């Protein structure tokens, strides 16, 4: 694989990390309110790797932890941030956190856990019926995997051989509930067999492993081979939402988790492979930070929607 592409993955991961950190900061500084930010900190490799496997015209459906795929699919950090600040200049005109850019195939969902999965299945059906070779990818968590919506969609997608990638981002927790408590089987991917689907467990903290697995699933889907369930094992480093003190995790567990930080790990592997000097990384960091700062500034300077806009966009 082209070293530039490898570095790009790191850049994406770093941009996710820093953009979200700024978002959390905005919340703690009380520049924004509402439900506290849901960060992908520690999980950046999943979205970065998965989205790198996609092309134009493919669709992703995000969860409540949805900023990572937005960034990874190339949405403008300025406009993402504007939506998170509820400002008129956002993709959604500031009208929701469901940051969506249809031109880049990103549909922001996440208010209702697992609800994006059936919808992603429908998008796959549309592609199939229209005869394109485009695919639809549903992100969902380990917690979401226990919703009936996932079961029904996996079975329907198998039955209709839909070009769907079911990407389970297993970060070990459904809020405070460890996946080991909620899932007694070996893996979530093991459920795939019950639908006659391929299911794989991969290291979700390695963007290259994710890219490889999802590329395989995408190739199969494009070729009419139907869906795949990919379970990417990763680790949520922060709380469920930014304000969550996560008293339910021990210090030892958190320390072990932080030692696996995928950004640090992937950077180290690139640098060990001679693909990224310290200077180049510093440069990457500086440019990312600049981009993030510009995004925050853009959001801050943007106006809220006008009250009358509350009554617009109800009907198409």
């Amino acid at each position, binding site marked *: 694989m082209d070293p530039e592409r490898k570095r790009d993955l790191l850049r994406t991961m770093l941009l996710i990390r820093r953009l979200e950190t700024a978002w959390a900061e905005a919340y703690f500084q009380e520049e924004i309110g509402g439900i506290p930010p849901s960060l992908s900190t520690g999980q950046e490799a999943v979205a970065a790797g998965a989205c790198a496997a996609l092309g134009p015209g493919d*669709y992703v*459906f995000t969860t409540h932890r949805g900023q990572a795929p937005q960034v990874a699919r190339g949405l403008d950090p300025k406009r993402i941030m504007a939506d998170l600040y509820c400002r008129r200049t*956002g*993709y*959604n*005109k*500031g*009208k*929701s956190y*469901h940051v*969506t*850019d*249809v031109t880049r195939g990103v*549909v*922001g*969902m996440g*208010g*209702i856990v697992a*609800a994006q*999965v*059936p*919808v*992603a*299945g*429908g*998008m*796959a*059906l*549309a*592609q199939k*019926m*229209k005869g394109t070779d485009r695919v*639809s990818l549903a992100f969902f968590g380990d917690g979401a995997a226990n919703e*009936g*919506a996932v079961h*029904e*969609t996996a*079975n*329907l997608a198998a*039955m*209709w051989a839909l070009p769907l990638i079911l990407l389970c981002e297993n970060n070990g927790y459904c809020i405070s509930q460890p996946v080991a408590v909620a899932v007694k089987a070996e893996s979530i991917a093991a459920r795939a067999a019950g639908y006659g689907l391929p299911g794989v467990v991969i290291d979700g903290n390695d963007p290259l492993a994710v890219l490889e697995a999802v590329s395989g699933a995408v190739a199969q889907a494009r070729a009419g081979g139907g869906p795949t369930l990919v379970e990417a094992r990763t680790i949520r480093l922060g709380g469920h939402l930014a304000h969550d003190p996560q008293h339910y995790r021990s210090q030892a567990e958190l320390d072990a988790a932080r030692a696996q930080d995928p950004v640090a790990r992937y950077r180290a592997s690139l640098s060990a492979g001679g693909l990224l000097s310290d200077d180049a990384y510093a440069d990457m960091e500086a440019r990312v930070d600049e981009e993030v700062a510009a995004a925050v500034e853009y959001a801050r300077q943007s106006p809220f929607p006008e009250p009358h806009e509350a009554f*617009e*966009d*109800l*009907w*198409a």
Partner: protein
Amino acid sequence: MTAEGRVFDRRLFRPGGPAPPAERDWPSFRGAINEAMREEMRRDPSVFQMGEDIAGAPPFGVTSGLAAEFGTERVRDTPCSEVAVVGAAVGAAMGGMRPIVEFQFGDFLSVAIDQLTHQAAMLHYLTGGQVKVPLVIRLPCGGGQGAGSQHSQTLYSWFAHVPGIKVALPATAADAKGLMKSAIRDDNPVLFFEHKALYRTRWPAPPGFKDPDYLVPFGQAAVRRAGTDITVVATLCALHHALAAAEALAAEGVSPEVIDPRTLVPLDSETIIASVRKTGRLLVVDEAYLTCSIQSEVIALVTERAFGALRTAPRRLGNPGVPVPFPPPLEDAVLPGPADIAAAIREMVSS
């Protein structure tokens, strides 16, 4: 057919006899829906269907022949997975298709509410208008067939309550066709409630019924019978019960005006209010459970906007708030019929 008799029989699942000679050339309600869907599927390749047995053994026969004409790619039998299927409709709609989903009984939407009210209905708004969700969900509904509590409801009041969903309630073959065609061409989610007792009924076809663009617009009520003494607002079978009652009352010198809203969302409040301004009295009849219902809504909006025109207290009839019972005598006790409507009108016009 008198105000005391039943207007519809309880033979939903029985083989139907031949149409009475007078009605032979009239389109049936069921056939009108079928025709509307067929025409729209011919016209627009993005229109397709999903539902349980709609290709293999069409429930109530509404989709009969469609799989033969359009194939099972466009007329898709689904498994018993309503969340996945409604979700598939939402996603396919976003992807440029125009899905029509059939539920065998509209009550079963209960298992897939979220995909409708939070996804289909909200995504256009939440994305600042970026995605469109044009889909139609067909919901056979209503009681009077002894089908039991979980197969007899009329829950449209729920979907008029929450934002983002259009609601059509056809009461004749012509409206079934014209509203269905409008629903399919609409860029928003539409719930299409089909009263099961109407499927087999036949209705005279208005001019233009065969026109490929025979559309009944949403938000235009029909004055089914003009009158001067009282405004009766009713939908689906209750409309026909109201017309039967009006017919009986005419003989007594009472002149009811009977209005069929045809769509609840959007609701043509102007036509209703104009009528009440003329008659000074309002009765709202529906099979729906009464509390927080469409009956409540029509009374509230008329009272708010035309209070001065009311000469007497408005009234509503409906299911007073119990599951629709299985035994026919109990079902008749719960659902308003022509006699109940006639009695209410008599009381109201004499007060």
